């Protein structure tokens, strides 16, 4: 790298940022670590440790340490599961769609989005384990020839879920990793003497001997395109199957044909919001104003606006049809959600997902305004999942069994711990990998990506 810059005058991009500055800016978080980083890691670790203690406590004593009861057999854990799997739709799907449609503005933000997918997929399915009554036997759902002489039940939506999510996780990791190879090679070459021996070896292994030959580039482009095409149907299937866990039962307000697409739209909606919020924080903390620009917030904000309207349309359809059919059990659930005990939640959800984002996103979409809209959407979408789970389960068909559900401190601690875990993973990722794809950014700015590794 240094050779090429000394031999020739520094390359300057259209935006007026020199090649050296790009490498410097984008690699700074990897080679420099400040006190703020360790503080954040420490705080996150505390929350995670407490959540892990809570989980241990729950395994030791039983699921009874939660607020679950005979009707609310599911609660916060399932809410979190659906929420995080929803968030996972952010990255990969958005980045795949933008890649396939060749929207060039996507380039600096794809990686920040894709790693959200991977981390959310590490956290969401974790809740499936946490909610299991006998987690030590979780491997019984894995289809492999076993001494029990029994296959898992392939008719169960939970098994579809297990299959889907695992495929999606593997696909997402691959899809995150592939475009990172040239950057890993760049770190290997540019930061050789600023890193310790362990990390140097790490990048040497991970960059898979990348030399930047034109054959390597064409292979990379092809595999990325193939992965993008595979990821999109996978992402849609994942959240459809998550919705089927609810929709395939007979329960009032769950058994709905619209649930599949409704969940997919909700997932992408909350996913975009997560990406926007993460981008805002990264941009602010890592001083990447020159790379993550207002145009990204503007475009993603527009996407968020569209999905807000779509979500509104789906919610309206979802509630209006049972309202007209007016079946007793469905009306009990709906009344419970809209005017009963959960009314404050319902109307907060509606406000957070429709009027607030609309007000903020119509007109000039500044980074601050889109970030506020995103946070509102995230809150609203979490409540939506809560209403779906708790709203139905607290109102079973036989009215004798109606019972309230109050989450316990164990569930709340683990919920908070999951958010800390997400931030923790994100921080660690930023320490090891460039959060803005260096070569893609250069391509975007008219700099030949090949210059990056000579």
């Amino acid at each position, binding site marked *: 790298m240094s050779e090429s810059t000394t031999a020739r005058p520094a390359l300057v991009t259209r935006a007026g940022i020199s090649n050296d500055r790009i490498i410097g800016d984008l690699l700074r978080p990897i080679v420099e670590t400040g006190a703020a980083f360790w503080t954040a890691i420490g705080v996150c670790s505390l929350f995670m440790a407490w959540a892990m203690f809570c989980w241990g406590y729950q395994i030791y*004593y*039983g*699921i*009874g340490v939660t*607020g*679950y*009861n*005979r*009707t*609310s*057999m*599911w609660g916060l854990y399932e809410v979190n599961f659906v929420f995080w799997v929803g968030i996972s739709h952010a990255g990969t799907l958005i980045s795949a769609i933008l890649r396939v449609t060749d929207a060039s503005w996507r380039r600096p933000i794809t990686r920040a989005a894709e790693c959200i997918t991977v981390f959310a997929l590490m956290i969401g399915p974790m809740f499936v384990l946490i*909610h*299991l*009554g*006998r*987690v030590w*036997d*979780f491997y*019984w*759902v894995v289809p492999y020839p076993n001494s029990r002489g*029994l296959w*898992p*039940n392939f*008719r*169960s*939506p*939970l*098994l579809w879920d*297990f299959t889907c999510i695992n495929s999606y996780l593997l696909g997402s990791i691959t899809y995150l990793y592939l475009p990172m190879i040239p950057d890993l090679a760049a770190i290997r070459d540019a930061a050789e003497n600023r890193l310790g021996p362990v990390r140097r070896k790490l990048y040497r292994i991970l960059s898979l001997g990348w030399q930047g030959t034109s054959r390597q580039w064409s292979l990379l482009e092809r595999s990325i395109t193939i992965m993008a095409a595979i990821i999109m149907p996978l992402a849609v299937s994942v959240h459809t199957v998550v919705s089927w*866990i609810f929709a*395939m*039962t*007979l*329960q009032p307000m769950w058994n709905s044909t619209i649930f599949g697409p409704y969940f997919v739209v909700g997932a992408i909606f909350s996913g975009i919001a997560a990406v926007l919020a993460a981008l805002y924080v990264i941009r602010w903390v890592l001083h990447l104003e020159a790379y993550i620009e207002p145009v990204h917030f503007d475009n993603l904000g527009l996407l968020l606006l569209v999905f807000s309207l779509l979500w509104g349309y789906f919610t309206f359809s979802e509630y209006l049809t049972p309202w007209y059919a007016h079946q007793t059990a469905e009306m009990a659930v709906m009344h419970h959600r809209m005017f009963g005990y959960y009314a404050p939640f319902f109307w907060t959800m509606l406000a957070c997902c429709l009027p607030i984002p609309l007000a903020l996103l119509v007109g000039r979409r500044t980074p601050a305004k889109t970030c506020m809209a995103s946070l509102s959407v995230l809150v609203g979408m979490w409540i939506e999942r809560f209403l779906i789970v708790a709203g139905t*389960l607290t109102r*079973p*068909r*036989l*009215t*004798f*069994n109606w*019972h*309230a559900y109050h989450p316990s401190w164990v569930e709340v601690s683990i919920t908070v711990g999951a958010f800390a875990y997400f931030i923790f993973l994100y921080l660690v990722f930023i320490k090891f990998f460039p959060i803005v794809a260096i070569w893609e950014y250069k391509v975007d700015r008219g700099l030949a990506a090949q210059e990056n590794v000579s």
Partner: protein
Amino acid sequence: MRWGMTIDLDRCNGCEACVVACRAENNVPTVGEEDCEKGRMMSWMRVERYWEGEFPDVKARFMPVLCQQCDEAPCEPVCPVYATYHSSDGLNIQVHNRCIGTRFCANACPYTARAFNWFDYKWDAPLDQQLNPEVSVRSRGMMEKCTFCVQRIRGAQIKAEDGKTTVKDGDVQPACAQSCPSEAIVFGDLDDPTSRASRMSTSGRAFRLLEDLGTKPKVIYLKPVDWNTSQEKESAS
């Protein structure tokens, strides 16, 4: 062979002897006051009590509810590990030791018939000395529900395997039917048109719980329903 049950609601007085008998037969633990308040009452059979009419003209209605042993059971296809499945004689089987506790079956059940082991429960002395050896004691994290006293059914079938005897109608009785003082509960083979349960199930009073859902329960309730005037009668009387 299709095991089924009729419950004559006109005979039921809500004494809950069936509930106690079930508890003793099937090693169903008591969860204590605190958990009961949290809605975690553990029982395979419960007597639901509904009030009809306005004060002071109120009537208490009792309805014993247990697993309805549906022919089209919503709980069966959703279990990822086959802990619940349909046996050849129509029973909705629950294999306790195979359950990993996803609780999906309980959420799929429209009758709230399933109970979960939130903790490892203890039996206060001397109850710990009277556990039924025919029925496994469940540990924390497992789902359980009414089995139609499958241990008694299988016991009778094993006895009949010598070829000299057969399982006759009335030979098998679940604990609830056996202990019902007003003989409201009748158990038998619904495929045998001469069995008592089968004959009762064709009564004009017969209905099934939430039968519009199409779950085809094998528990049949008997109670005349006057669809036209029941509402008026309630308020007039």
